């Protein structure tokens, strides 16, 4: 037997890691959470959840029966965006609005064609304001459709050209030209899955060891706390990378999300974030020492904030200051920002350097705290 003390580190680490991998492979619940859940999340977020507005139903009320007014309906009909349907009266349109059967109502007044000829025609657009972001998008669609309709009329010579000096706005969505929400949901999903595996799953398996008393037996051996921690980190780091690979494959082959930035930078930053998440999970488990509590704390302190407050769903610039501050404390926010920019905008080196440094600092601090709170002591 080698001298107890520094010797035997690798032997013990290999043995503990082997034990961890065996447990991981034999416990179906762990595999489900590590591999199956990411796949389910990818499919749900990729296919089930979409923030796009497609073929929004719009009621059109024509109080003006002229051919020009009818042509407006044709103009609104933009496949993929708006689906107009003509209704008999404003009342009917209001009823459809109340029943939420249409997202908007366009009212063409009786004097539309007369005023169009005079150059100051107006239409009224009513929107379902309950979902503000959807309403804003539909207003944009309607305005855009009407603008291109009048542009076409001018091109055909049916209307006077816009006066010289008048500015025409031609907007175009950058970094997500098709405004396809899958493109930014799938990169964000990588953050969620790494949080799930790193923090939640790891907190659970480590807390289980405290709870079942397996650590009590393990502690009265030459084993060092750092070996116990490393043996937990290594396999779950690999599981996290499998989750990452699944997400990247889904992004590339299933959802055709473009990848403008460097894949290597993405892998590097994902590994950094995985270490951060593992640190969170290990700290939580060593402090709670109880599976139920650990899972609750991990959910509330890591997974839910990563979902709600990291900029995955909501842009952090649009939320109240207090929430923005919380969001800016979360390591997930920095990884989220980085990964979305890598996917959709390309290599923004100052951002990459800054966010990687922040993530590395978090990883060092959290793993250091995990080492400090995991002591071979029961009191």
């Amino acid at each position: 037997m080698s001298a107890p003390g520094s010797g035997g580190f690798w032997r013990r680490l290999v043995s503990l890691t082997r034990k961890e991998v065996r447990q991981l492979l034999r416990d179906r619940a762990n595999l489900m959470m590590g591999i199956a859940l990411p796949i389910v999340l990818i499919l749900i977020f990729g296919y089930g959840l979409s923030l796009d507005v497609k073929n929004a139903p719009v009621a059109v009320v024509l109080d003006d029966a002229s051919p020009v007014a009818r042509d407006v309906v044709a103009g609104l009909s933009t496949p993929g965006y708006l689906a107009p349907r003509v209704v008999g009266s404003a009342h009917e349109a209001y009823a459809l609005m109340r029943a939420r059967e249409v997202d908007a109502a366009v009212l063409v007044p009786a004097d539309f064609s007369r005023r169009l000829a005079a150059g100051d025609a107006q239409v009224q657009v009513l929107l379902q304001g309950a979902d503000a972001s959807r309403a804003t998008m539909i207003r944009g669609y309607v305005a855009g459709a009407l603008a291109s309709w009048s542009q076409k009329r001018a091109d055909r010579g049916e209307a006077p050209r816009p006066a010289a000096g008048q500015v025409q706005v031609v907007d175009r969505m950058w970094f997500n030209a098709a405004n396809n929400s899958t493109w930014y949901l799938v990169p964000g999903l990588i953050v969620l899955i790494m949080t799930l595996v790193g923090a939640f799953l790891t907190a659970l398996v480590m807390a289980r060891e405290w709870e079942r008393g397996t650590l009590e037996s393990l502690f009265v051996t030459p084993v060092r706390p750092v070996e116990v921690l490393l043996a937990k980190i290594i396999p779950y780091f690999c599981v996290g990378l499998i989750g990452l690979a699944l997400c990247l494959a889904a992004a590339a082959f299933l959802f055709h999300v473009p990848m403008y930035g460097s894949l290597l930078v993405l892998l590097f930053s994902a590994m950094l974030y995985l270490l951060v998440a593992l640190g969170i999970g290990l700290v939580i488990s060593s402090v709670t020492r109880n599976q139920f509590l650990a899972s609750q704390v991990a959910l509330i302190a890591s997974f839910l904030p990563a979902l709600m407050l990291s900029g995955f769903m909501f842009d952090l610039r649009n939320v109240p200051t207090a929430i923005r501050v919380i969001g800016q404390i979360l390591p997930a926010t920095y990884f989220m920002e980085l990964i979305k920019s890598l996917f959709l905008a390309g290599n923004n080196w100052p951002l990459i350097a800054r966010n990687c440094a922040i993530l590395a600092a978090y990883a060092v601090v959290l793993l250091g705290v995990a080492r400090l709170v995991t002591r071979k002591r029961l009191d």
Partner: protein
Amino acid sequence: MSEAAVVVARDVRKRFPAERGERETVALDGISLDAPAGALTALVGPDGAGKTTLLRLVAGLMKPEGSLRVLDVDVAADPQSVQNRISYMPQRFGLYEDLSVQENLDLYADLHGVSREQRRGRYARLLEMTDLGRFTARPAGKLSGGMKQKLGLACTLVRSPELLLLDEPTVGVDPLSRRELWQIVRQLVDDERLSVIVSTTYLDEAERCARVFVLHEGRLLAQGRPEDIRRPARGLCFVAPPPPGEPARLLQARLLDDTARIIDAVPQGGEVRVIRRQAERGETAQQPGDALAWRPVEARLEDGFMVLLRESQSEAGAAAPLPALRAQAASGEAIIEVRDLVRKFGDFVAVDRTSFTVKKGEIFGLLGPNGAGKTTTFRMLCGLLPASSGVLQVAGVDLRTAPARARRSVGYVSQRFALYGNLSVMENLTFFGSAYGLHGERLRARIGEVLAQFGLEAQANAASGRLPGGYRQRLAMAVALLHQPDILFLDEPTSGADALARREFWRRITTLAADGTTVVVTTHFMEEAEYCDRIVIQDAGRLLALGTPQQVRKQAGETDARRMNMEEAFIGIVERGRKRETAEAVA
């Protein structure tokens, strides 16, 4: 400091800080002791005495106040160098249940740095001693309780430690496995001069140790060789048969209540064994109203322990009030009838063609090793598990056709006292009472009655999760008896309880039975079979013995020349049953 001591404690204290409204607890209050090298040392004491805390301090898992040197190292300052040299088996050894027997052994061998060559010889020996050789590929989680304990012991013994710490290694383990565990430890002490410290609530185990330390409420009550602990009881122990036609437990209960003259009384071999108070020495059998044929017997370690405990307890204050004994109800009619009962789980036959009857007002014991089918039988009797085939009648109702109606006449106390820990005693009683269909005046009256019956009035508003173990058990019984069932089922009610708590428990059971309640109970403590009118012994699903404790001892081969205790009888019967089984399998 003595040369040959592996553990030297001087004024060791351990306090746990106050937490959430509870007071600071003093687990150890100034312990000084020397544990000898190359020998077995026992720590005995009731629940909460501080045995586990002391072992954890020795293992370097907690920080003590005072001076504690283990293997000549200050363990508080350098726990790792102690942990490199010792082995420790906690109360519940942390086996990895997903890993096989072999993988668990390998893990600990790796951690202790046992070389390949050393391993070969060591494994062969450990597997032979523990009889686990056939199960090396089986996941540890699929082993029986006794086998798990043996594997835990094997894991701590992958190399010869300089000191082995065992924390209640035989709790919840049947007598056969218990004997095997002790054989392993004994052998190692004899062959390798291993130093072992073992904590236990089984006092017969302490009898085999070179040195015994008696702990009580964090203090050292006594120490010495087993005969030193026995000494205070010497000359105070007597045995007498009960009056004809009366079960031994009734006499025992009356004597136990006579605290002015009697320190302790237990039923034993159909007779009653007592320890008298010191003042009574010399007056012996000539007590008025006691025309019993008392004969003096040799004091055991347990007797000395009881004398010590009762002495320290009388200062501590009054024990819980116990109900008075009334005349025993007439019995004779069968209240539970079991015929050819079978329960299969897939191909596995958990209970195999078992038949017995329980009479009204009887105390009926179910005994058997781990995995014998006790619990399965028990669950079927309570209507918690349907039988595969056979007849099962409880209180005149067929459990297979009307389980709900049968359940109404049944009270059930599970092993883990199913109470709501954050509800008060009163709230628990009210909730369970209404669950049994009691309400209004009747519920209030019954709650008042059971509170008085179990001496819980003072605790009525305490959160039940904060009650000490003995009180929780009383509450669990009070809950089970709210609806005044004819039959009370108790699943290992005394598992993990100390001698004092067990005496009190059985005293209550005796009263209940005397009032006409039928009691069916499972237990691992074989001497508790003496409280039963009749017992069955099961093994591998088969009924091996049925009858009064005396009949069962006879069946095991007891003669007037060779008296047996229940444990010897039990081991004899189970071993003979297993031999017959293998003989049949070969034939």
